[in-house]
């Protein structure tokens, strides 16, 4: 709870930086604030009891705090990485406050207890992102990205509202626990429009995590947005959306899983195929990663599909989101630096192994982790998902996931091949800011550490 308050306070503070002229101080202040929020979050997690606030609309329980922790840690790295991009802009203040508000929404999504706070969280998170996606004002692509994102996002919000209304109509409550109670009380006597409501909500949430066939926005938006914003969307936003899906479908609708699990399974299968096969033929790195993020979303959805309310399930999703976020921050940070000249094709990576060996090495780790090769974090992330899935009736999905992630190896390795086996047009070394270097090294080490001692981290998540 304190984390949420600190972050929203920071957002307001950031808006005042322009007026009271402490723009230069803003970056360190924000970093400190995020760190403070993380510490407060951790202390709450450690103290172990949670209070529900706002008439039981938000409750930071252990699961919420764990996801908040992942989000805050990712955000911390993200700010260090992104500062280089915003630093020289006259609008740095606006950008920072927008990001902080998006973060506030993300934290809300980890802790909502009520469908109103769910909707609020989604909107608070999304609206700043529409603006941020279009924040390269003079770039047509960026404008297009923001606009597309806005239109399609509003469309999805419409579905969400529609779904909430239907569910409310059937159960008479916005409260997740009450809905749950109602479901178990009524059994199969729920009206059919209730199920339609669940499906509508599911579709809206699937849109947010860009699962197929609701993924069309993702490649265009990821490619068009400034790279740092893409990084934000594929890490913080994804994690928050998954925390929300987990809460919604395990707490509220867990009892009627048969009504949505088949839909979810088909969506996962479709996402795996479309994402990996499309990614394989892309030439733009950011676009490839957009498709890859769809594939990762499918993996994380499998945990929800398993619908086993056990620690192992939560562990798996948490571990996956952490591994994926950290790996993505590293990858996008490097892409940002490499593609500064505007060339975003795989060729921009040619010869990076010579032009900046450290950066290339970190990129290798990030790619291996995203591809799921041991001993990186990504391997165990996939492994934990598989172990939660193995006991369920979706073995065919598991096999499909393994096969398609083999395709994934192909496009991740394209980057590695470009870095080490292709000749660059120039031998000129690629320079990188110190802060960027720090993030890059820290995230890389973190990825390796997570992979070297997976049990160590999983144990931290035990609750």
């Amino acid at each position, binding site marked *: 709870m304190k984390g949420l308050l600190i972050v929203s306070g920071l957002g307001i503070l950031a808006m005042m930086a322009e007026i009271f002229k402490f723009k230069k101080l803003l970056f360190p202040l924000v970093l400190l604030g995020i760190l403070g929020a993380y510490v407060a979050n951790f202390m709450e997690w450690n103290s172990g009891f949670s209070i529900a606030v706002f008439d039981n609309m938000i409750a930071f329980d252990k699961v919420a705090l764990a996801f908040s922790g992942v989000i805050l840690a990712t955000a911390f790295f993200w700010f260090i990485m992104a500062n280089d991009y915003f630093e020289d802009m006259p609008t740095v203040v606006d950008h920072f406050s927008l990001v902080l508000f998006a973060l506030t929404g993300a934290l809300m999504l980890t802790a909502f207890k009520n469908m109103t706070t769910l909707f609020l969280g989604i909107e608070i998170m999304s609206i700043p992102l529409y603006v941020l996606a279009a924040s390269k004002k003079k770039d047509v692509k960026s404008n297009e990205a923001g606009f597309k994102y806005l*239109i399609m996002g509003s*469309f999805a919000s419409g*579905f969400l509202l529609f779904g909430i209304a239907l569910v409310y109509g059937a159960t008479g409550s916005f409260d997740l626990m009450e809905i749950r109670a109602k479901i178990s009380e009524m059994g199969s006597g729920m009206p059919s429009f209730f199920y339609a409501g669940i499906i509508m909500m599911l*579709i809206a949430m699937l849109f947010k995590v860009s699962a197929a*066939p609701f993924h069309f926005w993702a490649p265009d938006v990821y490619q068009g947005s400034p790279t740092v914003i893409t990084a934000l969307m594929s890490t913080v936003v994804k994690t928050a959306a998954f925390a929300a899906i987990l809460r919604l479908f395990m707490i509220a609708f867990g009892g009627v899983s048969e009504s949505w699990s088949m839909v979810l399974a088909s969506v996962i299968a479709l996402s795996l195929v479309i994402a990996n096969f*499309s990614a*394989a033929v892309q030439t733009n790195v950011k676009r490839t990663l957009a498709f890859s993020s769809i594939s990762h979303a499918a993996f994380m959805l499998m945990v929800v599909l398993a619908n086993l309310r056990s620690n192992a399930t939560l562990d798996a999703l948490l571990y996956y989101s952490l591994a994926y976020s950290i790996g993505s921050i590293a990858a996008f940070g490097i892409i940002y630096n490499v593609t500064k000249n505007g060339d975003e094709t795989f060729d921009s990576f040619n010869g990076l192994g010579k032009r900046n060996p450290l950066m290339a090495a970190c990129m290798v780790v990030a790619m291996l982790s995203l591809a799921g090769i041991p001993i990186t974090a990504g391997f165990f992330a996939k492994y934990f998902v598989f*172990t939660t899935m193995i006991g369920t009736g979706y073995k065919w999905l598991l096999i499909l996931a393994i096969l398609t992630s083999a395709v994934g190896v192909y496009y991740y390795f394209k980057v590695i091949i470009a870095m080490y086996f292709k000749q660059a047009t120039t031998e000129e070394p690629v320079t990188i800011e110190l802060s960027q270097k720090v993030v890059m090294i820290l995230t890389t080490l973190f990825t390796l550490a997570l992979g070297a001692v997976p*049990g160590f981290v999983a*144990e931290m998540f035990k609750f």
Partner: protein
Amino acid sequence: MIKLIALVPLFPLIGFLINGFFGKKLSKGLSGGIASVSVLASFIVAVLAFLELEHSTNKSHVVELFSWISADTLNIPFEFLYDPLSAWFLLIITGIGFLIHIYSTGYMHDDAGFSRFFTYLNLFVFFMLLLVMGNNYLIMFVGWEGVGLCSYLLIGFWFKNQAYNDAARKAFVMNRIGDLGFLLGIILIFVSYGSISYGDVFSRAGVSSNAVVTAIALLLFIGAMGKSAQIPLYTWLPDAMAGPTPVSALIHAATMVTAGIYMIVRSNVFYSISEVASETVAIVGVVTAIFAATIGLLQNDIKKILAYSTVSQLGLMFLGLGVGAFSSSVFHVTTHAFFKALLFLGAGSVIHAMGGEQDIRKMGGLKGKIKITYITMLLGTIAISGIPPFSGFFSKDEILAHTYEHSKLLWVLGMIASMLTAFYMFRMLFLTFFGKFRGTHEQEHHLHESPSSMTIPLMVLAALSVLGGALGLPEFWHMPNWMSEHLSPIILHKNPSALDHTTEWTLMGLAVVAAGVVIYFAHAMFITNGVLPLENEEKMKPWQKLIYNKYYVDEFYDAVIRKPLDLISTAFYKFLDLQVIDGLVNGVGSMVKGTGNVVRLLQSGNIGFYIVSMVLGVILILLFTFII
């Protein structure tokens, strides 16, 4: 200190990281200093912990660091086991490791890869410590593979010489064969007992059938054969002498090659249960001991002689393990670590003095020129030959006494091996240090004693080689055999000596007399008669040729294993790989690309289309949910 035992492997790891990342920027003194100090720090912690263990009644401490891998029923914590066995190995590894680090600062001083050398050396110490400290077979396996890697890196340290690279590769491949056995053994252990932690496994070992235990014991022994260079996997060790001499002393004499002994002592439960397995160990051991000793008789490379001697001594240790004398083998590991490290370092000092020459045919008369090296090596040679009261005598005698009790035939073979040892060791000593100098004039001019950083470790090791026997005095002398008492908590089936004192005295006397006679014979041959090794093969008698060429084992492996394997590989490559696999893979690849090119068309960029397909998706899903 036992609680802080994790510091022992941590220090070399830190040393490795510092030297690995910044070694090139550090001065040589700093780089070598950091590496040596890190091992010294480990040694100090190991000593303090050891003292604590000695005074504590609890002899087995498990220090859990973190939960390492946990998935369903597989739960492997990362924890260390600190008990008399691991405590003792820690002392050997860090103690001798430290001496060899010091020696290396002198020996490697002019080498361009100075910091790289210490990086590898620290990493080796780290993995070796992991190997002996783990509380389950997986950590042992990680250490096992790690030391193998470091061994590979260090054998091929001078990688510009292709022959050295080949030697490194040979060591790696040979070890991999053994490792596979070890790995299968671990898997079988897990399948049979549901755990790979020592405590669980050993307490449940009696439950499973004898066949399972035998299979486990034999598979583990295959691992030991690779790492500890036993027949048929020994041929890599002599070639491994391509590495710098301190490496030969540390890795290929004192520590890594004894990992197989450690593993079997650790798993002694299995070998106590399975007679078949322990017989196999004993026979392989004694055959290796004799086989390698005979090859040692006619080698001319000073390091190769020592390498064959190591193989032979390791064989003796396995003989001890096979007859159930576990603590005697650990005792011999210890004394062998002292005198063999000493001999290797001494040989290094000789090579240093000779400006890189390793052929004893080109040496001779060095005893006046490099006195310290000569005296220390003389002490080492006496120790290995089994002359009382030097350390080698006691440890070898203990193994042979247990062997005698077990089987007279094995004892005879063991005696022959140790007589051969005395002979070739004195042959090496006499040819190197006595007689006239046979090298070039330039070399003679260049002869000089090594710097004190090299001679001090020699002196320390010489003292240990002389006095080390006190660790395990024979029980019938009514003296405490400290080593066997120390190790008694971890040996589950003890095997007290049942020989009467007269027999023991006789055996001991026989051994001493035999060694004396052999040394006299060597003296007569090489000093009095001045016999020199033959310069070329043509003058040799057939049996000499056979031995000189190491029984043609390498050639045999080449013809029987490598060539057929090459043929099969080529056939597979040409047919299976190029045709079938490549065809399949390329087929899959073009399928993926083809599908991708179709699927990408969906991504038209037209937002109207996106929304239409989204709505279609929603409609389809709703239809699907409510109609089907």
